[in-house]
């Protein structure tokens, strides 16, 4: 019998380690001038350097160094006065030169931290995630496995390589062991990746699109018996491609580890792959023999030694921190803590801010993003910003409600249609003939019909029992197919029955 999550966290204490890879959005690759555009035709963005041709010499992209230092500074890291690149040697065709240029014992940024907020049973709590290192490396090429039943690497007959991605600047951000999270480990992991993503976005150094792979997370999870003070054997889950998946992967691995430990079995230190459809992980390479990367300093590149003046200039140019910005917006919009946390959790802050910037009332904008639109996003299991409605469209809907051209009920129909891809609010309204029935004579006709159909209820209202009016208003709304403004109907109804 598998343990429930509650049983797992009662018996075991989780420890996490998170490695985030982020592709920088530089125009060119890390060590050559090839373009980095996403989705280009195969092998159109390659040259002798990124193809590892003999004699080709890499030269570092200055912008990539600058972006990495800015990431380090935003994460409160120390910047290493002189750091070097190293060759990580391995025999695998995703890199054409049989090694990846990375940083090993001299990363450019070390010892930082990032505070993240998670809603707990005792209210919102801050967890400090310590950063071990931030280092520069290059991304690998893309493999397409051909043959075999599943298109997966196992059973493939051969593989096809596209090296457009090989050499794109990649920054790896590694945490120290994160402990003391208890049952909130999955939420802390998600909050960390989310906060990191927000920081990277505010710095403008990456597209941070998890679904396109420009932000990727590997989650190390281990369990130890509660109170033992030990660290268990960890598994590393790769291929975690959404914030929701980070949370699911950590929770799933905690349950899997606990199941093994409870049966007296051992957790194998291995790489596992997250399965988006089932939420489970699958064992990756089953090699007992550990990889040996034989790191050594890259002789083709010179050390990176950023001078203090440059670092201080970059530090002074850092944008407002997302956490500071959130506090500012919360104050501006007069939002209670819990509501603000809900907005952050739903990834709605940017969306609400943009909607408000387009003229919408903050409370109304928030109501739509956190209400109906969140509900539809959850139903479709997608992120709020990918649901298919823009701040501009929401702002327009809010505007149409405020001038009385839509009721809340009709607006929900419009939102659903926009999300379904039927066009902008105005064209949806025109196409579907959605409009508030404001023609008083037809409203009065509908009200009179409702009164005639339910004379006893009308009598109650007449004698002063106002709550009874609801039944009549409901009948009118039904008659007008929801296109009437309920408040106006009530006014007219009470006028007729007074």
């Amino acid at each position, binding site marked *: 019998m598998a343990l429930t999550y509650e049983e797992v966290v009662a018996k075991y204490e989780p420890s996490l380690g998170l490695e985030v890879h982020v592709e920088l959005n530089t125009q060119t690759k890390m060590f050559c001038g090839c373009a980095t555009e996403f989705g280009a*035709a195969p092998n159109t963005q390659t040259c*002798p350097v990124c193809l590892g041709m003999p004699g080709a010499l890499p030269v570092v992209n200055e912008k990539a160094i600058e972006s990495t230092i800015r990431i380090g500074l935003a994460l409160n890291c120390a910047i290493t006065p002189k750091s070097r690149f190293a060759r990580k040697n391995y025999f695998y*065709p995703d890199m054409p030169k049989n090694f990846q240029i990375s940083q090993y014992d001299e990363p450019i940024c070390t010892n930082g931290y990032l505070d993240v907020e998670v809603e707990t049973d005792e209210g919102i709590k801050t967890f400090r995630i310590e950063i071990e290192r931030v280092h520069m490396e290059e991304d690998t090429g893309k493999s397409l496995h051909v043959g075999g039943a599943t298109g997966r690497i196992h059973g493939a007959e051969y593989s096809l390589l596209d090296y457009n991605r090989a050499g794109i600047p990649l920054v790896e951000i590694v945490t120290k062991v994160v402990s003391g999270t208890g049952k909130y480990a999955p939420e802390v992991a998600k909050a960390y990746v989310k906060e990191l993503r927000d920081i990277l976005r505010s710095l403008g150094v990456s597209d941070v699109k998890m679904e396109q792979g420009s932000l990727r997370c590997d989650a190390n999870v281990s369990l130890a018996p509660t109170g033992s003070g030990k660290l268990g054997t960890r598994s590393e889950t790769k291929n975690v491609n959404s914030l929701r998946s980070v949370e699911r992967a950590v929770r799933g691995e905690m349950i899997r580890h606990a199941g093994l430990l409870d049966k007296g079995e051992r957790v194998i230190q291995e790489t596992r792959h997250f399965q988006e459809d089932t939420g489970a992980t699958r064992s990756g390479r089953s090699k007992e023999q550990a*990889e040996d990367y034989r790191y050594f300093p890259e002789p083709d590149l010179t050390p990176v*030694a950023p001078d203090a003046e440059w670092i201080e200039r970059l530090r002074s140019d850092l944008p407002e921190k997302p956490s500071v910005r959130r506090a500012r917006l919360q104050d501006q919009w007069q939002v209670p803590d819990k509501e603000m946390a809900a907005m952050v959790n739903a990834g709605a802050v940017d969306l609400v801010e943009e909607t408000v910037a387009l003229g919408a009332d903050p409370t109304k904008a928030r109501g739509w993003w956190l209400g109906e639109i969140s509900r539809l996003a959850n139903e479709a299991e997608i992120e709020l910003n990918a649901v298919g409605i823009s701040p501009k469209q929401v702002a327009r809907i809010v505007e149409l409600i405020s001038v009385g051209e839509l009721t809340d009920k009709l607006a929900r129909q419009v939102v659903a249609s926009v999300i379904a891809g039927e066009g902008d609010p105005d064209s949806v309204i025109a196409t579907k003939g959605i409009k508030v029935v404001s023609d008083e004579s037809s409203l009065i006709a509908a009200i009179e019909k409702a009164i005639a159909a339910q004379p006893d209820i009308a009598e109650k209202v007449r004698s002063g029992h106002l709550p009874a009016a609801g039944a009549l208003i409901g009948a009118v709304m039904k008659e007008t197919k929801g296109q009437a403004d309920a408040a106006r109907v009530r006014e007219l109804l009470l006028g007729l029955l007074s």
Partner: protein
Amino acid sequence: MPRISRDEVARIAALARITLRDEELSGLAGQIDGILDAVAVVQEAAGADVPAMSHPLEITNVTRPDVIVPSLTPEASLSGAPASEESRFRVPQILGEEA
């Protein structure tokens, strides 16, 4: 005492996916030892006061601006490849030994 054991050569060969015969394993262990002996001589020459360096010149921060330079055409990129398909490099199955 050899610096590199026969087992270590076998392990490195496996990581590199190179199949070696028994007699080649023994022979290579000796040859790699010879190379390491030669490097050891250089190591003796460098005293503790000489810092390790990864580049022959004492220079730092050789960088390039983030400006796009034309790439090769896919045809040129693939021209030296033993096999290609759909504008991609075609390579033998990966991890075949684990399939």
